[in-house]
């Protein structure tokens, strides 16, 4: 899976390099649109902007802490058991995040239901631990975690905002478009409340990003056949 990361190796710890570790995943190497990772939660919790933001915050926290932890013990852990160790670290962090959410945001935690627990199997967390934290220093791994968490948050926030505004006419609970049922003029798009809309929105985000960054366009797998081998 996605092994794209800043150049590894010694002597590359300059400020610019750190900045790139942090900022790279925001747009250029966005975990969702380029590597197609971490979708499980990205789609299901974006019905409202608030849920999307809380989910991103939870994922970012887990990413930063797991990056730091995996990186800190990377010289002590034998390669053969590293996956188990990583899963245990991530699972413990997710339990903490889950309990914090239940303690301070009970309503929201109910709304996110199983998706907080599913951060454990969120491929972003796992792939960053496996492809970055395992061979970089603690600080850089935490920066990488923060960058990927924010990149994830940008896409989630965008999709969440569009779905909430078009689907229920509100943003973070405040009315933006007065809905017809409430005496206004806007007839909400019910499609936006349904899960499939997230797919279409993410497809649009990917399309937009790849039009800006043409190097991400996928190669054609098939070239038009001549008349003799046409289908």
């Amino acid at each position, binding site marked *: 899976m996605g092994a794209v990361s800043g150049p590894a190796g010694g002597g590359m710890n300059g400020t610019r390099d750190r900045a790139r570790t942090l900022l790279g995943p925001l747009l250029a190497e966005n975990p969702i649109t380029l590597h197609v990772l971490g*979708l499980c939660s990205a789609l299901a919790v974006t019905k409202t902007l608030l849920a999307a933001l809380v989910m991103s915050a939870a994922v970012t926290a887990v990413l930063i802490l797991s990056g730091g932890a995996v990186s800190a013990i990377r010289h002590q852990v034998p390669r053969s058991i590293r996956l188990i160790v990583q899963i245990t670290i991530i699972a413990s962090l997710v339990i903490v995040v889950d309990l914090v959410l239940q303690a301070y945001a009970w309503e929201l935690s109910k709304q996110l239901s199983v998706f907080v627990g599913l951060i*454990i*199997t969120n491929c972003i967390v796992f792939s960053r631990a496996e492809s970055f934290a395992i061979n970089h220093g603690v600080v850089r791994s935490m920066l990488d975690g923060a960058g990927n968490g924010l990149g994830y948050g940008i896409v989630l926030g965008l999709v969440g905002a569009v779905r909430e505004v078009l689907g229920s006419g509100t943003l973070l609970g405040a009315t933006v478009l007065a809905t017809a049922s409430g005496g206004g003029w806007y007839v909400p798009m019910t499609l936006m409340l349904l899960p499939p809309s997230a*797919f*279409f929105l993410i*497809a649009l985000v990917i399309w937009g990003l*790849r039009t800006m960054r043409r190097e991400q*366009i996928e190669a054609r797998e098939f070239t038009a056949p001549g008349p003799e081998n046409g289908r």
Partner: protein
Amino acid sequence: MSVEVFLRAALADNLALSFFLGMCMFLASSRRMETALGMGAAVLLVMSVSVPLNQILYARLLRPGAWEWAGLDADLSFLKLITFIAIIAALVQILEMAIERYLPVLRGGLGIYLPMVTVNCAILGAGLFMVERDMTFGDSVAYGAGSGVGWAAAIIVLAGIRDRLRYSDAPEGLRGTGLAFVAVGWMSLGFLAFAAMGG
């Protein structure tokens, strides 16, 4: 009763298309029909075994009040995440070894997909939904099998669609991943009809 749970899990509450679980793998392994078949079978196998297994563990050990018979007032349910993932990882290892020992024919087709199933959100998600919906053992057997069948069916259908999409003349930016998202969106809309039928 169990038939209803099975059908509901396979169609109306399809884990891939209604809850988007296992999406990373769903999109990554649906590029080719062979990988989709292998992955679908691996998920079906692990899901049908792991959900009932986790149900037993949860009901006997972790559930609030599970230790009443010993006079202990303990609520270990917060341990469910780490327990379930450990069970799934161990189960996958055991299945892998069993297949290697007794059904070497399957190793090439199924074996290489099994390890990846550990981090498939659908497997863990099914376990968590089982807890959230408070299922009995019988229900959890039907739910695990139904979810597995539903997930496998969805990925096989998507692989078929993507096989065709390869020949389409899509806008450059949408090619590949983008189009797959759109296709899954339409499939998901289609599956909403099952939810309407189920009531």
